[in-house]
């Protein structure tokens, strides 16, 4: 792989977003190319610096009051929703007797349409979730040129063995 090709892929390389074959090709190039190796190290240093400063700023923040504030908003929302439902109920009760069949027929028709469209069926199936939450993939080490890829059974991380060292995700 030439420098020009490798350079266009270095962001995706450090983010481990390349397909395995390309990941290995770029890793081989980076292991042999001083300039690309320096660029990768710079990208990793930038990652560390952004994390460092953001985590330092966030570490002193007291989060104990967050739920209290959210709960107050949730209470207000629920109260307003119940108020609306109460008003709607009172309006329905106030409808004159002869109007009742009209709105009842409308509701029945709407229910029929919903059933026809499947809206009244089973609740949606839970989508596949990413179990571990946000990930932090950063290439940490790369040494040598003889490569092989394997998946870590415990963490699910992709490990690329580059001979004397390894390229891993954390």
């Amino acid at each position, binding site marked *: 792989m030439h420098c020009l090709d490798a350079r266009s892929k270095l962001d995706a390389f450090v983010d481990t977003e390349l397909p395995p074959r390309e990941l290995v090709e770029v890793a081989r190039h980076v292991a042999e190319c001083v300039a690309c190796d320096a660029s990768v190290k710079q990208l990793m240093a930038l990652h560390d610096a*952004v994390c460092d*400063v*953001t985590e330092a700023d966030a570490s002193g923040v007291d*989060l104990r009051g967050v739920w209290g504030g959210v709960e107050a908003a949730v209470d207000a929302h629920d109260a307003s929703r119940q108020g609306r439902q109460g008003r709607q109920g009172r309006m329905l009760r106030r409808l004159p007797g002869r109007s009742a069949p009209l709105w009842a027929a409308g509701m029945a028709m709407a229910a029929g349409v919903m059933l026809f469209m499947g809206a009244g069926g089973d609740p949606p199936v839970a989508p596949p979730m990413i*179990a571990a939450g946000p990930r932090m993939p950063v290439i940490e080490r790369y040494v040598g040129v003889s490569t092989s890829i394997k998946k870590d059974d415990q963490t699910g991380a992709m490990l690329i063995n580059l001979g004397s060292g390894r390229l891993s995700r954390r």
Partner: protein
Amino acid sequence: MGESDWDLVQRARRGDREAFRGLVERYQRKVTSLAIGMLRNPDDALDVTQEAFAKAYQNLARFKGDASFYTWIYRIALNLCIDHQRREGRLPQVSLDPLDDRDDVPRPTIRDESVRGDPVRRAEDAEIRGRMRDAIAELTPEHRAVILLREVEGLSYEEISQTLDVPKGTVMSRLHYARRQLQARLQELL
């Protein structure tokens, strides 16, 4: 292992307040950290965090589950951050020019181990952090968001694309641009 986000969402939709509290406690630190990264002000960030979760609760019925809960809550929080900055009139001006206040005095670098280990150089370490903060703050909100979601929250390109509702190619180009901007501004530190 705890309940999945989806299970908690389903329970919260049925009115289970504790389930929603579980979601808040699971993600409040990450959302606050993202908001601090965007706003650089812990008080504003806490306000945004609370508002984001309150909005999420109000719109739980609209959460379809085709994306993760955390990409959804990040999206709400990011939109609130951008709104907040617009209200405050604090959106940065972007320039491609590197920092122009350089001098020839050697400065400590982020990769210099002595900076991290030597207490005598804490002031320099603080300087590095200060310059890092400034450089991040000078990015546009869109570029700052993509950097924070990638570098701090560790989201994949696909997840960032879902969070920001932009194509994956846009995520890649914004990330590339934001990194080049930061590198240009922090050239002698990296």
